[in-house]
């Protein structure tokens, strides 16, 4: 698949993102007097999703979407062959607007000024990845916030960091389709590996940057170790930093 096609077609992820151009300069020019504030804001930033992971998730999202469309098309063709239904009638009823939009975009990019649109797409693609990095971070933050409200969290229960940052977050960041039984094994494996890398990065950030305790707006994100004895009085999500264990198990299998 051509890389610059990825951002040119509407996908569930693209729907999450604003379409306007995004300035690469954060918060405008830095006044020397405000430097300490800027440094502080950089230091306290919630888990910054690595660029490479955001890019992989977007690509996977596209591939998973393509695979779904292909399987739907195959199903429709099979139905058409086995009945008197016309394909066009079925399409109108059963295929989403997204699919039609995708086809229209692809055809128009081929027909009209392909070279220029390709350059434009490259520029906007980078912007989308940068913005998507922040969106993934926000989704993780929101998920952990929701977990903190669960009865399990309120009883002081611990969540598996790996489970929450892989299967738990997949749907929120547009990778829910990887768990369909029809998904190709190779694609599923890549999605699982990408999510596990995301979980690894998150765990490293939490343990190394914040020594296992990040004060969030809704409460705290805390890593719980075997020897952790302290309890908290406010809303807290206790996470078992178990990524290493899961990585070993994945490598063995």
């Amino acid at each position, binding site marked *: 698949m051509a890389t610059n096609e990825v951002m040119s077609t509407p996908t569930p992820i693209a729907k999450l993102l604003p379409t306007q151009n995004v300035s690469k300069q*954060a918060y405008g020019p830095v006044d020397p007097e*405000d430097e300490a504030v800027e440094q*502080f804001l950089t230091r306290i930033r919630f888990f910054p999703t690595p660029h490479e992971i955001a890019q992989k998730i977007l690509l996977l999202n596209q591939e998973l979407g393509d695979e779904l469309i292909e399987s739907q098309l195959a199903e429709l063709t099979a139905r058409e062959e086995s009945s008197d239904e016309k394909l066009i009638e079925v399409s109108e009823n059963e295929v989403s607007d997204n699919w039609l939009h995708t086809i229209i975009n692809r055809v128009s990019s081929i027909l009209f000024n392909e070279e220029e649109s390709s350059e434009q797409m490259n520029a906007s693609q980078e912007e989308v990845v940068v913005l998507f990095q922040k969106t993934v971070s926000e989704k993780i*933050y929101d998920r952990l916030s929701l977990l903190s409200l669960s009865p399990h969290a309120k009883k002081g229960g611990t969540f598996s960091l790996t489970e929450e940052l892989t299967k738990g977050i997949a749907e929120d960041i547009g990778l829910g389709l990887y768990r369909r039984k029809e998904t190709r094994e190779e694609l599923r494996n890549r999605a699982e590996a990408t999510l596990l890398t995301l979980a690894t990065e998150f765990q490293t950030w939490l343990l190394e940057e914040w020594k296992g305790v990040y004060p969030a*707006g809704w409460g705290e994100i805390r890593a719980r170790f075997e020897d952790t004895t302290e309890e908290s009085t406010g809303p807290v999500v206790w996470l078992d930093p178990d990524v290493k264990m899961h990585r070993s198990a994945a490598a063995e299998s």
Partner: protein
Amino acid sequence: MNDEQKQGERAADNPAEDSKAEWFEDKDFQRRLQQIARIVLRKMNRDLQETEDLVQTALLRLYQIDAKRRSEIKDSNAYLYRLMINEVLNRMRKQRSYDVSLDSLETQDLVASNPNLAENPDYNISLLLRELWRQFEGEERRLFELITFGYNSKEIALRLEISEEAARQRVSRLKAKIRTNLAGKRVST
């Protein structure tokens, strides 16, 4: 009459101002004040980095004492000691009522539950971040969250469905509050 002449006349009219200025410029006096602040803070199990803030506040209070009252102070060390203790107690009271009203984690509990925390180089950052979350509510808190995700003003404007200019103004106001919080604190960023 120029400014220097005016100042000269004021000093001549008010010798107490002169002696006050001398007192505050005396390096030994300032060192003594710092030492006492450290002793008090250590005894009261407080963060040593509050010292500078406390010394500043104490100096301001001392500056308000008139010459007559100052001459009545027989044991200046004991006086400074008492002044520092009162200042720490005031701060603790303010901190406690603030924490309770916001129903959040208390710094003291946090330190008590994790003795290694005070040795953590990021301790100040964590404390300051907690303080900010406590201060920000509603829209401000949401705005601060968006900033912690790394969104810039343009992206914040889209997220909050407001104009870019409005977003920039809100971000600017929030940063001014953060700057106030950062002032006087030695935070390693």
